[in-house]
């Protein structure tokens, strides 16, 4: 017992492997979480954080590896089994019945008491007691639909505590909260660990890691790359660990002289789907023959920016002028007709119609043009010819152009989207996460195509969470944080650490000092 300086382990995951068709979500992950600590799981989207926690919560079964709780090896076959092991999870999207009351939601699925009747008096007492103890004020009789998002999250936490959880998994809990609610949540989490509970906190926000956690494990591409004490690390180091330093491949980027200004964005404001401010006064210019990279941790307004510029979301204030047209006042169709191409974030959910053919998907935006449509009748021959040409040019591999787009691989779907969007020689290209989830070959091709467009004369707004990609391709890098621009730098005069710090909310001047 003499050598033991740290508290015992609450959770020990050993060599967890989880494969999904075509991807390895977890590739031999080890994770050690001490009893009574707040342990952050940090990583980019798709790094495997949520998958790992779903395994711990019994929602997925690992293909390989062991789980030990408090030193004992266990099998967690279902969330019910996880609860029996006193593990609770608060999902990113809540699992509440909105028409039921708080207490009804909390006891839902429990079989306590006798007979078919619920014992609300006792329940209510216990809820009140828990709420008071941990600072989770919420009216047990209120209906869930009446509650704010922050209050709903408290109900989720209460649900776990009511079931005697002593390990609490929080999956990106702050993504839906206002700053004030975040503060309250952090207070609660501190009270919980003081009372002896263990908290695992999934996030990709560096500030939160620094603020709340005792230790942090960084996941990258399905692997745990490091576990460090929060007190002994910095945002810069974590940013580097999270995005990885090694450059996987090089793309030849010829220097080009940037052209005239094509887009002028002034004081742009917009809201996200939850009606919270997502863009808060963005002002920047974009030039022809230029790639402007947008770097930032996801959820800081990139998605909303791409949607506002393509007419899919209304701006609440400001303007975005593309050659005398204010895009904030145009419909998506008008903007597309102005020569704006959009490679959307969710290429399968938004970018294609999976059940329709490659041929039809390739004319999704141009079907009204005289090339493909005469007197309202679609010209199948022209569409077929168009598909053949584009499939060859963009190397879309498929049996034929009648194949349903949904049957293509991820790389081929992205090639299809690029082929459609870029074939009309657009002036302005919004490319959101264009290589996300693609394999090496497809990634390389996508980057090559974007550089070709730049050479041809297009101005490109490249949104990506892959900092290497941004640094390799961009002529200038715009760093976004909570809907504001932290600074615009060139890849040459900004180090990864500097960009990382700006992504975490420091303005450029602060970074330089």
């Amino acid at each position: 017992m003499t050598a033991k300086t740290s508290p015992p382990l609450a959770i020990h995951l050993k060599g967890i492997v989880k494969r999904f068709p075509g991807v390895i979500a977890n590739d031999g992950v080890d994770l050690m979480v001490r009893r009574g600590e707040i342990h952050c799981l940090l990583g980019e989207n798709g790094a495997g954080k949520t998958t790992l926690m779903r395994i711990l919560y019994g929602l997925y079964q690992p293909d390989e590896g062991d789980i030990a709780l408090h030193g004992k090896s266990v099998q967690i076959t279902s969330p019910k089994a996880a609860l029996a092991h006193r593990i609770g999870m608060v999902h990113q999207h809540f699992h509440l019945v909105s028409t039921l009351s708080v207490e009804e939601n909390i006891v839902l699925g429990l079989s306590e008491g006798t007979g078919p009747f619920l014992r609300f008096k006792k329940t209510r007492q216990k809820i009140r007691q828990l709420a008071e103890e941990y600072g989770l004020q919420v009216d047990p009789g209120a209906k869930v639909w009446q509650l704010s998002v922050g209050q709903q999250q408290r109900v989720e936490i209460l649900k776990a505590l009511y079931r005697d959880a002593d390990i609490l998994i929080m999956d990106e809990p702050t993504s839906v909260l206002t700053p004030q609610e975040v503060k309250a949540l952090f207070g609660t989490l501190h009270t919980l660990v003081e009372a002896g509970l263990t908290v695992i906190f999934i996030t990709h926000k560096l500030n939160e890691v620094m603020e709340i956690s005792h230790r942090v494990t960084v996941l990258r591409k399905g692997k745990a790359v490091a576990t460090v004490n929060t007190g002994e690390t910095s945002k810069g180091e974590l940013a580097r660990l999270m995005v990885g330093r090694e450059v996987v491949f090089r793309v030849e980027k010829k220097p080009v002289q940037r052209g005239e200004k094509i887009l002028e964005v002034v004081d742009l404001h917009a809201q996200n789907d939850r009606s919270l401010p997502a863009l808060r006064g963005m002002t920047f210019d974009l030039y022809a023959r230029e790639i402007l990279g947008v770097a930032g941790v996801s959820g800081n307004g990139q998605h909303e920016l791409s949607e506002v510029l393509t007419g899919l979301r209304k701006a609440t204030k400001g303007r975005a002028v593309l050659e005398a047209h204010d895009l904030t006042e145009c419909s998506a169709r008008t903007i597309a007709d102005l020569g704006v191409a959009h490679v959307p974030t969710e290429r399968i959910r938004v970018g294609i119609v999976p059940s329709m053919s490659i041929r039809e998907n390739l004319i999704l935006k141009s079907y009204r043009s005289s090339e493909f449509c005469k007197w309202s009748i679609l010209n199948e021959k022209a569409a077929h010819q168009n598909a053949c040409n584009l499939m060859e040019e963009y190397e879309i591999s498929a049996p034929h152009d009648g194949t349903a787009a949904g049957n293509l691989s991820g790389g081929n779907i992205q090639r299809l989207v690029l082929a459609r969007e870029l074939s009309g020689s657009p002036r302005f290209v919004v490319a959101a996460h264009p290589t996300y989830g693609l394999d090496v070959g497809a990634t390389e091709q996508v980057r090559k195509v974007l550089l070709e467009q730049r050479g041809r004369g297009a101005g490109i707004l490249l949104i990506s969470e892959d900092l290497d990609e941004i640094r390799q391709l961009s002529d200038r890098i715009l760093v976004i944080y909570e809907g504001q621009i932290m600074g615009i730098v060139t890849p040459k005069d900004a180090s990864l650490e500097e960009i990382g710090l700006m992504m975490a909310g420091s303005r450029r001047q602060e970074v330089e000092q």
Partner: protein
Amino acid sequence: MRAPSWIHIERRPSRSAWTVFYVSLLAIAGALVAASIFFKAYGVSPLHAYRLIITGALGSSIGLAETVRRTIPLLLIGVGLTVAFRAVFWNIGAEGQLLVGAIAATGVALFVPMPDALRLPAMFLAGFAGGAAWALIPALLKAQLGINDVISTLMLNYVAAFIVQWLILGPWKGPTARGFAYTDKFPASALIPRIPGTTIHWPTLILGVLAAVLAYVWVMRTRQGFEIRVVGENPNAAHYAGISQSKVIIMVMLVSGGLAGLAGVGEVAGIQHKLLDAGKLSLGYGYTAIIVAWLARRNPLAVLITSFLFGAIMAGGDVIKVSLGLPFQLVNVFNGLILFFLIGSEILMKYKVSFAWRKR
């Protein structure tokens, strides 16, 4: 939930026409087996009953004529429903749209003075417009306010039926109807010609066949059809491509309701020759056509076949009612079972199920 190890479920990469065909046959066979329970319960051999249905509906020229008579409204409505279903607008209100079409045609037949030669064309136009207008209500409710299409279309059926009821008991009650609840008989110029010796009002049938072909071309080959399919298959992509979902919903419902309205014209001017009680006027064509469109897998051309099939089932239902003394409702039970099995069989289109008796 995990399937037992001897059942192997695999995603189908794509659905072939052959898969659609045999899965549909399987569903009908399943419904036949399930329906036998009810025939048994009435003490009738199911095989005997099915044989009667087939011979009754198809075995004689009279039976065949009865089948075609029922095919006509099912064809018109079914074609319209395939179009609405393509845009994933669940139009359960064809019954009401049929009735309003019938009302509009009756109004033109009885109360609008015009040259005889124009009367029938005007009635068809009015019927189409009436059905379309009735369908426009749920379309606008959905497009503007996001109100559930299933509920609004269904509820409007009852409203339409009560309007018919009110008209035939009130303002339009025929002076020559001797106290019965229906309007006066239509003038000769307002009657759709029939094939002599039958109740087949052939001009409506031709309209139905024409509608099937045109709807197919419209959905599969035109710009608007492309928009309809994109909205139905992936509304997110439609939004992304700048296609207006509201416009598509209104467009398909005008056509869907209009075709149901034409079916209503056929029933009043081709069969009944007067406006009468909603239940006697329609026989539930608007509901049966849902199954017709579904079995056709939303393909307007396939409705030519499926509407005939259900026309035969309805005609055969009359036969078993008369010769076996069974209630006509049994046919509705049977139709319901077919829809039930069809919807259930959708999963077989997406997944291939095989049984591995030996260990792999």
